[in-house]
């Protein structure tokens, strides 16, 4: 294998590893949209909140990392539920544009609140994980860990949605909202649970991303637009579509980064997205 082949293979592997975390974020956003029918533009800002929670609990208060992770997941799940109660629930029947404005407003609110509370400093959790060497290929352990955990998170979500009646009710309510109430299902409870589960997924993503990225108030912008694009590309609300699209986009970013630069790779990803929207506006796997 030539050096070029090895570097390309390394880029592909890194793309797959990045795809895992992006898929997890896309699952969370798709779950919320599929069930509640509201796009949380501020979804990546929940990840930012989770990263800050983890940072303060671990670095400032000295909590063990795993306990801090657990607290961040529970904390962001609670934040998701709170966001639903305070912002989403009152506008459920409103026009989609009003819902977009409200969740978009939350994006700026959370960013500004984080800036006010913590400043614009970049903070690092200070955890150095080793790099795995496979022949001439170097794989970051933190990325591998993030990928594995994201995959476990996605499988856990699949089992929850397919094996528990609460999860089945979430899938069902996405198909027919009106009839669920007449079958005795309290829609408000399902929506609240969905928001908490979506928040927990953002919390889990925060735990995985904090190993690789510094925390700052605008870190959500690094993942928010790409997550939204992945969801639209896969077919908004389609979880399998989002999962597949996450790996397509992450490969474009990784291979584009290898051949050109990381900035150009994001341009390529956006161009691919725009072209696909012309060819298949309903998304790759829309039903």
């Amino acid at each position, binding site marked *: 294998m030539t050096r070029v082949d090895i570097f390309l293979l390394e880029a592909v592997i890194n793309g797959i590893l990045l795809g895992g975390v992006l898929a997890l974020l896309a699952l969370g956003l798709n779950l919320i949209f599929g069930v509640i029918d509201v796009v949380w533009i501020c979804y990546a800002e929940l990840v930012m909140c989770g990263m800050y929670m983890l940072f303060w609990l671990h670095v400032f208060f000295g909590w063990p990392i795993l306990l801090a992770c657990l607290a961040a997941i529970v904390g962001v799940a609670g934040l998701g539920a709170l966001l639903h109660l305070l912002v989403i629930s009152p506008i459920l029947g409103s026009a989609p544009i009003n819902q977009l404005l409200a969740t978009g407003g939350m994006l700026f609110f959370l960013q500004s609140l984080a800036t006010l509370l913590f400043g614009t400093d970049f903070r690092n959790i200070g955890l150095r994980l080793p790099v795995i060497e496979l022949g001439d290929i170097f794989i970051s352990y933190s990325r591998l860990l993030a990928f594995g955990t994201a995959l476990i998170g996605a499988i856990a979500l699949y089992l929850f949605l397919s094996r528990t009646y609460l999860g089945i009710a979430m899938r069902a309510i996405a198909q027919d909202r009106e009839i669920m109430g007449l079958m005795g*299902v309290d829609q408000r409870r399902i929506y609240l649970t969905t928001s908490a589960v979506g928040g927990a997924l953002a919390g889990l993503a925060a735990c995985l991303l904090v190993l690789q990225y510094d925390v700052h108030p605008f870190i959500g912008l690094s993942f928010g637009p790409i997550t939204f694009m992945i969801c639209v590309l896969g077919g908004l609300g389609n979880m399998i579509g989002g999962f597949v699209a996450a790996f397509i986009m992450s490969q474009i970013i990784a291979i584009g980064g290898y051949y050109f630069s990381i900035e150009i790779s994001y341009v390529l990803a956006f161009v691919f997205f725009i072209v696909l929207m012309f060819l298949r506006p309903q998304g790759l796997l829309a039903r």
Partner: protein
Amino acid sequence: MLEVSGLSKRFGHFPAVNQVSFNLRQGEILGLIGPNGSGKSTTFNLIAGAMRPSAGSIRFEGAEISGLPAHKVCHIGLARTFQIPRPFRRLSLVENVALAAHFGSSESIAESEARRRAENALETVGFSSMKVSTEGLGAAALKKLELARALATQPRLLLADESLGGLDHAEMEHAAAMLETIRTRLGITIIWVEHIMGLLMRVVDRVIVLDHGEKIFEGLPEAAAKDARVTEVYLGHART
């Protein structure tokens, strides 16, 4: 069992249901008929909690239920079927019914118990196999599924909306017999909205006729057939 008094629903200035009152006795099958747009489905929606009434009262077993959300109405023992079956196509047959059993019950039940109730309900309506996909179900099977979902919530009052629509003659006979069986074997009181008059008149104990949202007749089926206003308003429409 059910006391409806002065029930009204307005959509803007249009009165969909206007001052409708009637009582329902335990164990009765009451037919609710009328031409299209007469307010039958709206009345069902008001009783089932899918809509809030503009005025009036609905008392079920002595308790006021008007304005309660649909899931609470379901929990206190009312279930409804739909004129056009609305199965969850991405769920299995048993999952479709088990959801109703699990969430529609007034008490909290285990998932295993919900599944058992779902299988019982599916057997009651005549499904011999539980491993059927909802994708390939025909009109009769979909109506059965609709009924099974309602029965799985263990209701005391069933609101059956056009259970015969889209069925052939043999299937209609079977569906009508099924409603009688549900009443006699399970002791469930039924309000039945239907357009197929012959079968309905044979099965129901009493009939209420609505026209333009107002009750124009209440009494025995034979009397309805002879009533001049019913003949003019309802049967007259049917013949045109």
